[in-house]
């Protein structure tokens, strides 16, 4: 297992190098704008553009720029400065990480707390009215775009622009350590909105997994042993049905840690997603590169964690 993890970690590094190289190439091959020209102002004299180009290192070949960038990243953990507002990218990412983590973790808890019980109940009460109701609701939630859902949530329930003033509105996010109760209040609606489609997806996934598992021979065995139905489902069936969900969950968490762009945007939560979005809009390569690398990092690490967790959950899977 140890060797397996080391080998996987090496792959993570290779993957991050590839991702960063591809990001670099895309930026240079499909330029939306020349950063030096953007900085130079109107009717610039070519001298100024050249100076800025030199300052930003843009006068070097792409591979030299890439090499310099990677050297800074690897040896100094330095991701450069935003073209847009001169802020150090590392600082920007780290200062935004807590918001993204808060949003992700809370939403995960919400969607598991909602999605899993619904999935189990629907599977057990298959074809009942309750099952049909929750599954149609789930289909709606899956189809609803998060941005739209966020707006509707705010228009209906925000305490500033909502019809019924229940939740704190957009832009009220504050750090957990700064003000825990405001942190919690400001994230309630974003959690619900972000969690809605995930909860729906997980409920449907668990339901279908569970229905499949319930016809397994070992469930018949468990019943034949004289176990109560509660134990048959709770211990034997759910355990099997939920294991594949762990895989999905890990990847979802990894993806969200890379930034929940739409949710962060509509609720003005200063997370990684918004940073990436602004970087893209502004052709801000250091920010794009930094957020892409972090996003990729979270996803590959999530993948690794998922695989390791899977080995513990399913003893048939062993890595060596």
């Amino acid at each position: 297992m140890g060797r397996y993890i080391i080998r996987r970690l090496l792959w993570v590094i290779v993957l991050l190098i590839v991702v960063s190289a591809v990001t670099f190439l895309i930026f240079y091959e499909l330029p939306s704008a020349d950063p030096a020209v953007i900085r130079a102002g109107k009717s610039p004299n070519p001298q100024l553009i050249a100076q800025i180009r030199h300052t930003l290192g843009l006068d070097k070949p792409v591979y030299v720029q890439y090499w310099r960038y990677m050297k800074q990243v690897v040896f100094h953990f330095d991701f450069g400065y935003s073209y847009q507002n001169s802020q150090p990218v590392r600082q920007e990412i780290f200062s935004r990480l807590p918001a993204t983590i808060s949003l992700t973790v809370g939403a995960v808890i919400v969607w598991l707390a909602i999605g899993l019980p619904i999935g189990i109940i629907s599977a057990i009460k298959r074809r009942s009215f309750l099952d049909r109701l929750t599954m149609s609701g789930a289909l709606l939630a899956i189809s609803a775009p998060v941005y739209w859902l966020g707006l509707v949530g705010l228009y209906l329930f925000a305490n500033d622009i909502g019809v019924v003033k229940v939740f704190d509105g957009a832009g009220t996010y504050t750090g957990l350590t700064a003000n825990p109760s405001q942190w919690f209040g400001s994230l309630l609606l974003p959690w619900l909105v972000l969690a809605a489609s995930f909860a729906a997806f997980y409920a449907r996934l668990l339901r279908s997994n569970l229905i499949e598992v319930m016809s397994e021979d070992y469930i018949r065995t468990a019943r034949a042993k004289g176990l109560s139905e509660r134990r048959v489902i709770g211990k034997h069936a759910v355990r099997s049905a939920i294991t594949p969900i762990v895989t999905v969950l890990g990847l979802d968490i990894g993806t969200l840690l890379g930034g929940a762009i739409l949710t962060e945007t509509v609720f003005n939560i200063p997370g990684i997603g918004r940073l990436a979005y602004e970087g893209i809009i502004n052709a801000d390569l250091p920010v794009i590169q930094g957020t892409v690398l972090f996003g990729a990092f979270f996803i590959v690490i999530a993948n690794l964690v998922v695989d390791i967790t899977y080995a513990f959950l399913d003893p048939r899977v062993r890595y060596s």
Partner: protein
Amino acid sequence: MRPFRLTLTLVAAIALVIAVAACGSSGSSSSSTAAGSSSSGTSSSSSGLSLAGLADTKQSSTQKMGGTLHVISNEGWEHLDPGASYFQIDYLVVNAVQTPLYMFTPQSKIVPVLASGPPQISSDGKTVTIHIKPNFKWSPPLNRAITSKDVAYAFQRDFNPNVQNGYAAGYYPIVGAAKAAGKPIPGISTPNNTTIVFHLTQDFGATFYQALTLPGSAPVPPEIATADDKSSPSKYDQNPTKQAFSGPYMIQSYSAGRNITLVRNPNWSHQVDGLRPAYADKIVWNAGADATVAARQTLASTDLLMADGPPAAVLKTAYESKKSQLSVSPLGTYYASLNTSVPPFNNINLRKAVIAAQNREAYLLARGGKLVGQVATHFIYPEVPGYAQAGGAAGFGQDYVSHPTGDMAVATKYMKLAGYPSGKYTGSANVLIVGSNSDPGPQEMQIVQNGLQALGFKTTIKAVPQQTMYSKFCGYVKAHINVCPTAGWIEDFPDPYAALYVPFSGKTIVPINNVNWAVLNDPKVNNALDSAAAISNPSQRLAAFAQADKAIVDDAPAIPEIWSSNALVKGTQVHGVLDVWNDDWDLSFSSTS
């Protein structure tokens, strides 16, 4: 033009308002003036739109001191370093925490602020001497008096590539500045602590004076900034809370793209300043809000000012039911440049025919109708001083710009003069039209194409991202683009020089990042602009620029599309005061009630 909203847009284009309507969420910003307040003097909006009931956004004697002003926006800040700042949103902050030599009042009147009076400009317009007030002090912890050496250092920084100022090379033709590269500038001297003398390379003093309102003229203390200015980019920009402040407010906290808090500068006094009332005790600004949500929050609030414009849908709601919280004001102009340097539009009569054949009202409809502006007839637009002198909405009366929906008879007349007796173009040129691929770019290209095809032109349309349009096509002279219909212009400061010079003087043509998209190089226009720029007397100056404007329209280098308006929203109680020239709120003039 300074960047507006989308920063990318920078430079060049900035143009215009980029796609304002296009992406509501990114929006464009701003504007200002309440149209209702024609007292602004600089602009007399003649659009037929009924603006009655819109918010009163002028100063008022009922405004009260104290309280916290709350601001919200979609856009974040770029550079709060006064040397680097070149963006509408940034100006709101920089003009509240720093003090340029001169500033424009909300109604675009130029007044001395750090300077003790108007500049002394030598008769050749090449030497400008300015005295500064002796009793302006830096904020704590520096606390010392602000001197002319701090101003000289600010200019030194403006030409330091690490600071990356976007306009100094264009507006500050100081002797030796271009090669100073961060070292002291030979053309600036400070005979004593309250006097600074600028030696210019040309007869430019009158316009230089106007450009001294830009934040690049605000003092910077060398003892704090020198070390920062050695790194690239300068670290003075990275943590604005560490700056020294000369304005009524200090930056207490800042996180890029998220929030900023301003508090009073204890070393600043209104008596010394003479201009800014600084009503609020504190200013809290949260950026990064979704534009739709922020606009709704603002309309539902009592105390919010939204610093960028509401998306079209919310704008419509506000216009219908919350007029007292909405202000609509002139912003900038859009036009379709006709490249005068290459066939077929190197033929002036062909250009006139094309303009005459255009249905210009269609551009207004493409951008959203009367709420977003009016059909343009010349190039000094309503927000810029000199608009009235240039004939206001009617303009100069040339027959090819007199019919908003087009006039084929006039077009035919000019086609004949151009050598096409049938009234149809029979040459071989294929007209290349390049424009933004985001709305309303494609519609605008279509409108141009319709007009051209009516005259028998063969056309090709190329839709690209807005930035690419500027960097690779319209701003790249060698690309020889015939028509750029989605470009726009906003002035850097409220002076006709800023509206006309860069886009139409042949002296501004540069190979890349060119903003004279029509590549117009007419000595008559160049001379008219240069001589107007040298005039100090305000009324003569405006009259001279109006004549230059006429010379430009006579050259028909572009199809005037629209003069755009912009909108801002505010809470029900807050008293928002607009800077007409910046098309946005002035934080030093707005108050909580």
